[in-house]
């Protein structure tokens, strides 16, 4: 063994000596010789027709979508169209699913449980807690995802995403981050955990950390439904009905863009403080546009993304549903645990324009952002003491349509301000537990995991506070 070690060291020292003899320039020389060899071989076998085509579709399109003038407007319009189609298209299937899963199957399950003599606490825990939360997640999430993901994947297949990165690159570089962060940000729009893994394409550890910490500012699919629903109720609600769809889509785009702005600002801040350094250069290849294979895209985006993401949501929703049922039904003196907590947090939450219900919902929903809205609704009913909607307290129910949901929320004391703050808080809060775990696995550092977790919450509280104070100053409320 000793002998081997010695021989190894001999190899290395010989390499050192030879390297010394060769001098500095030989790496470049080596690269040049690779290029020269490639050129020679390519010239022998490739023939390009001399006549240039008069019109190149790719080049003409690139001139528009990556132009300094039209690039960003085109980007916003395309995003807005995707959301508008999602908002408009998801409503009807959502109601359909809700009416089957909640209005038909839920009572049937209850009466069946009653007929075989299941104790109330057990049927409450399993049917009113676990089953209903799952039913809610399916009916609220499946339709928008089944529309949004294929549309997004079609854009990706067509080759639009690298153009987005191309447009954004300059901004990120000026923020002291890596241009490829634009790509990982785009991945984050699907799922932050996937976006965090995708930062592996960034070579420099400093820039990679920045990309990981700021990925949470890309709205992930778990938060899209919250954004879309709240925008439809509160922002769509204050404009004439025929404009509601467009205005709510624009509001969602606004939040998404705000997320991009935050990711730039935070990247800038980090690169000037905790993660100082220069931005490194890289080359970004704009791939040719390719006609998307529509059927194949539908298949993969439904299987790869929709079903997998939905499954994850269901897996997290089932235990969360039980927790909700428990906190709403286990009493602590006169009041349920949920009630006690909400009353305790309410004064502080109101200062930042939210309420105790929202805070509790976000704590319960740490495993999955998708179940925030169902939890909020259930808790609101409990606190406002509404009767005659859903199935009573402690039951997560479906409000059927956006307007019915709005009625409940209004009864719970919600205003336009609460809606706006919820949208902001949904953008700016801790990543879900899967993402936190992924960040830990990727960074192997407790410190950076904690920074990525708590930085957005602090920002969310600060932003909501200022929005609320300024709003109250002007509205006088």
């Amino acid at each position, binding site marked *: 063994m000793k002998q081997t070690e010695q021989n190894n060291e001999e190899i290395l020292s010989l390499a050192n000596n030879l390297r010394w003899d060769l001098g500095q320039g030989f790496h470049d020389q080596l690269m040049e010789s690779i290029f020269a060899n490639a050129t020679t071989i390519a010239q022998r*076998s490739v023939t390009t027709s001399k006549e240039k085509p008069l019109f190149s579709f790719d080049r003409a399109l690139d001139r528009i979508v990556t132009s300094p003038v039209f690039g960003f407007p085109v980007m916003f319009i395309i995003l807005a169209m995707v959301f508008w189609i999602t908002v408009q298209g998801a409503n009807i299937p959502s109601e359909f699913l809700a009416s089957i899963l909640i209005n038909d199957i839920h009572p049937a399950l209850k009466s069946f449980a009653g007929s075989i003599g299941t104790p109330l606490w057990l049927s409450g825990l399993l049917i009113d807690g676990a089953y209903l939360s799952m039913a809610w997640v399916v009916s609220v999430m499946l339709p928008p995802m089944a529309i949004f993901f294929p549309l997004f*994947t079609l854009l990706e*297949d067509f080759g639009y995403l690298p153009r987005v990165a191309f447009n954004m690159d300059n901004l990120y570089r000026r923020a002291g981050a890596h241009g490829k962060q634009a790509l990982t940000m785009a991945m984050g729009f699907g799922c932050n955990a996937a976006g965090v893994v995708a930062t592996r394409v960034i070579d420099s550890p400093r820039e990679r950390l920045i990309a990981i910490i700021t990925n949470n500012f890309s709205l992930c699919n778990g938060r899209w439904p919250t954004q879309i629903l709240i925008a439809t109720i509160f922002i769509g609600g204050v404009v004439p009905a025929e404009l509601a769809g467009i205005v709510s889509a624009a509001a969602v785009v606004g939040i998404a863009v705000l997320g991009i702005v935050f990711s730039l600002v935070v990247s800038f801040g980090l690169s000037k403080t905790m993660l100082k350094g220069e931005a490194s250069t890289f080359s970004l290849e704009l791939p040719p546009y390719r006609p998307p294979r529509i059927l194949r895209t539908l298949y993969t985006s439904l299987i790869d993304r929709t079903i997998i993401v939905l499954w994850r949501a269901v897996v997290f929703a089932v235990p969360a549903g039980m927790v909700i049922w428990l906190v709403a039904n286990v009493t602590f003196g006169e009041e349920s645990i949920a009630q006690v907590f909400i009353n305790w947090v309410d004064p502080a939450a109101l200062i930042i324009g939210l309420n105790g219900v929202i805070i509790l919902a976000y704590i319960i929903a740490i495993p999955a952002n998708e179940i925030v809205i169902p939890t909020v609704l259930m808790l609101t009913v409990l606190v406002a003491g509404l009767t005659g909607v859903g199935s009573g307290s402690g039951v997560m129910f479906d409000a059927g349509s956006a307007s019915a949901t709005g009625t409940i929320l209004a009864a719970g004391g919600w205003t336009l301000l609460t809606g706006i703050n919820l949208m902001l808080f949904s953008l700016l809060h801790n990543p879900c537990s899967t993402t936190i775990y992924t960040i830990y696995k990727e960074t192997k550092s407790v410190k950076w995991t904690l920074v990525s977790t708590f930085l957005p919450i602090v920002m969310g509280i600060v932003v909501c506070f200022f929005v609320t104070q300024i709003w109250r100053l002007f509205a006088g409320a």
Partner: protein
Amino acid sequence: MNTNKLELNNCASCPVHNVGNLKKLGINMSDYDYVVALAGNPNTGKSTVFNNLTGLKQHTGNWPGKTVTRAEGGFEFNDSKFKIVDLPGTYSLLSASTDEEVARDFILFGQPDVTVIVADATRLERNLNLVLQVLEITDRAVLCLNLMDEARRNKIEVDVRTLSKDLGIPVIPTEARQNIGMQELLNSINEVASGKYICKPYRMKGKSKELNSAVEKLSQKIKLEYPNIPNSNWVALRLLEGDQSIIDAVRTGELGNIKEVKRAITEDELQSEDAV
């Protein structure tokens, strides 16, 4: 010439017409006879080729860098079982970024029986940079010249026979998105893996005399210590360049136990794939 080869697809009497012989095994690859690595520049369709061969539905995307970790799958062809590994797309194997290291370490330490390099026919010259670097590491490779449909659209013609003769490895024109050329590709993989086709890979010309003699000297010494290494010249070159991970591999003796390293990489990769 290239179109000729594609038309063979329709010819049932031809020996490459082997549709019935391909069995897609998905991720079921418990024991295998050969390991195939899939390398190439970003966005050339590696994942599409991978899916075509394994029947898996790994998500493909039209943007560079979507495969960050390795994906693995299996297929059976002519009674041999193949394990195929989809490596991250890279422009070179020389720098130290994670994706390039994953690709390079697998080709070097994983010792695949065949390395399939997927190249974009419309950008052959740039793609050849990677091809030449792969051929420095391994002797057994197949060039899958993908996106032939796009090349045709852009009026680019590639003389496949000349290219194959120059590179010394089989060159198969394909249109992976349309599943065209896969049979010929499979056949070539099989021939190279089983040793029926002996590659005579192109070795880079134009290195200076001093460099050549330095590589020669160092390579002799490495061969003495590690007689099983097939690419001692390449290792020597990397040592001369001061490549830290190769220096470490020599220092710890990892270079010698290629089999063990191979297993270590696989476990490591599996762990990092859990994160996805």
